[in-house]
């Protein structure tokens, strides 16, 4: 932050305030991917610097936020690669990780394969998209997922990346990727039903 302010004071770059206004979102994004406030700050810092340098190349075809996020994505991936190299033995956890997810999924269904906590009919979910408090609940539920599940879900559903690309970045097989995404979706739907849609659907159809 200090560095950014020192290098590009608001007076020297007319887009500074506009770019800076997205910082909150960018930090949340970086945190969701990196799970480490310091690393997230580092990624955002680098992305904002790159954005200020390259703002001339922003053609306005996407929103500024989307453009900034795409820059940040590369910074995040750089940091993730660095971490992977630093922790070369990270892959040994892949198997165990998936066993954990499968065990968690086992818990969601009874012996005959029926839902233990059956999905309800949500009342007018579209209307929720307009409500600020819904997004707080959404972010909280996303943050409550195990870190891999949260990261994979974010890349898949929020960023719309292809599953094979995500699996490769994460260094896991497609079928493991699917299990993780499946868990993320079930956990998110349960969390939203509990924290947001719950009261409305207490008498759900």
């Amino acid at each position, binding site marked *: 932050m200090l560095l950014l302010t020192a290098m590009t004071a608001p007076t020297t770059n007319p887009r500074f305030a506009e770019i800076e206004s997205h910082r909150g979102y960018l930090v949340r994004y970086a945190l969701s991917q990196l799970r480490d406030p310091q690393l997230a700050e580092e990624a955002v810092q680098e992305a904002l610097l790159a954005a200020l340098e390259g703002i001339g190349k922003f053609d306005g075809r996407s929103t500024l936020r989307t453009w900034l996020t795409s820059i940040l994505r590369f910074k995040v991936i750089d940091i993730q690669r660095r971490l992977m190299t630093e922790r070369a033995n990270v892959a040994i956890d892949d198997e165990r990780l998936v066993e954990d997810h499968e065990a968690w999924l086992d818990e969601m269904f009874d012996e*005959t394969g*029926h839902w233990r906590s059956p*999905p309800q009919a949500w009342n007018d979910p579209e209307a929720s998209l307009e409500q600020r408090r819904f997004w707080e609940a959404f972010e909280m539920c996303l943050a409550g997922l195990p870190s891999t599940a949260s990261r994979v*879900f974010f890349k898949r559903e*929020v960023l719309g990346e292809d599953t094979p690309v995500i699996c490769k970045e994460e260094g896991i097989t497609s079928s493991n990727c699917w299990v993780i995404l*499946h868990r993320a979706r079930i956990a998110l739907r349960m969390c939203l039903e509990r924290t947001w849609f719950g009261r409305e659907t207490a008498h759900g159809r």
Partner: protein
Amino acid sequence: MVAEEEDLNCRAASRLLSLACERPLDAMELRALKVHLDECLMCTNFETQLRFLHKASQVFRDGG
């Protein structure tokens, strides 16, 4: 008698619904899923919720 692979329970049906977000299901998977969804309101709710999660994620990206 229904073939065994068509006789899904909720656990298997939900897995297929989630999988359908990653790749197109084949004819046999689709048929089995349809048989299950025709009778199971809970999994039908789950399917609707998956669609909503997808849409909410898109809106989230574009600024909430």
